[in-house]
């Protein structure tokens, strides 16, 4: 399958999962702690060597689309742009010193499971933290927001790993 087609298929699937399944998910009291967003994996799956302008534009438009579904007026867009900004500098720290093809993407196959989980884990928590703070628009109760971001971020990682495993399995079959 053409990587671009595959990417677009994944994009559609993840977006639909986000706005149809996860948005309507009711966890009762846990809703306060767990507000999972997984769609940002699409931004993280983009190739490492990408034009920053294009990268940010994709992130921004993705955030705007999610904002339209969630009625959040630029909050997700802001968090996505922040995510793209952080990834641009963060990913360099995780890469092997040499022998890594910058044209590929950051996947489990390329960098190994632990590094990949670390990569999406950090970025997922940062994404949620930025989003929660931007949503409240103040730094009051920072540690509460941080813990909310931690629980939501960890939940998102688990969900993403599950999704990944499911995709890998179906591909092998």
């Amino acid at each position, binding site marked *: 399958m053409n990587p671009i087609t595959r990417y677009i298929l994944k994009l559609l699937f993840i977006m639909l999962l986000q706005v149809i399944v996860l948005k309507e998910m009711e966890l009762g009291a846990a809703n306060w702690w767990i507000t999972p967003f997984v769609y940002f994996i699409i931004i993280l799956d983009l190739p490492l060597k990408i034009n*920053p*302008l294009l990268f*940010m534009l994709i*992130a*921004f438009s993705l*955030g*705007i689309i999610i*904002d339209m579904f969630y009625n959040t*007026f*630029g*909050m997700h*867009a*802001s968090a996505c*742009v*922040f995510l*793209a*900004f952080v990834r*641009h*500098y963060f990913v360099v720290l995780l890469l092997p010193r040499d022998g890594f093809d910058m044209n590929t993407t950051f996947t489990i196959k390329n960098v190994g499971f632990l590094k990949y989980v670390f990569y999406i884990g950090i970025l997922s928590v940062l994404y949620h933290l930025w989003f929660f703070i931007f949503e*409240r*628009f*103040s730094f009051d109760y920072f540690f509460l927001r941080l813990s909310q971001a931690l629980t939501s971020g960890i939940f998102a990682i688990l969900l993403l790993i599950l999704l990944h495993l499911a995709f890998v399995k179906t591909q092998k079959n």
Partner: protein
Amino acid sequence: MQNIFRLLQKFQVVLLFLLFQILCFILLLSGDNQYHKSSIASSSNAVVGTVYEFSNSVTSYFHLEKENQQLVEENNELKKQLLSRQIQVGKMFVRVNDSVFYQQYESIPSKVINSSISFPKNNFITLNVGKELSVNSNMAVIGTKGIVGVVIASSNSYATVMPVINANFTLPVRHANSKSFGRIFWGEDDTYLTATVIDVPSNVAVDIGDLIETRGSDGMFPEGIPVGKVLSVSPVSGETYQIIKIGLIEDFSAIYNVKVIKNLKRNEQLELEKATQEKFQ
């Protein structure tokens, strides 16, 4: 020019980030969400307030001299008011036993300017209050511990008091424990420290050290003002009363601060009693 482009390229990610964040911010404010708008308004108010506070904390030093001048003037003004207030307090009656519905007694503080404790002469006390402060005869005088006497005459600025240690003095008093009443007078064998109480019935058990207080039936003294403590009790043969020697609570040899008590209802009481007596004569 080329350097500028190079610089822009170097920081292009940061610049793009800021640009997009500003875009998101504009989006956020353009939407119909009151929460963020009010939140931004309040935080901008906080910023303005902080700046204003800081500038005020700096500029306030320049006004210190003026402020000091104002404070000195205000202090002088207040001091003037305070002085006149003090005089006024002395001229006004201070209310005792006050309530919204019924006020029976008023009191005025005064000082003893002349007194004597000689025996067997009739002693008098002179106070520094008079008719100007509406002190008239038949007003009660109370010291810091107990009763002193009764005003018998007053001029414009002075009043003379007949104290307990005067042979003409007599007053209804009562035994504080049993409320049996009698009369106090200054007998021939009394010194300035003692007085005699008669008319307390002999069946009333009066112990040494019991308190004798005013009865209040005369319309001059409030009831329950301490008079003295029982020194000795002696029955009188052939009479139904006992003679009680009391030690006066007020120290007449060192009397200085006293209060003049005015009973606002005294005339009413006396008139009623007089009218009642006339009815039965």
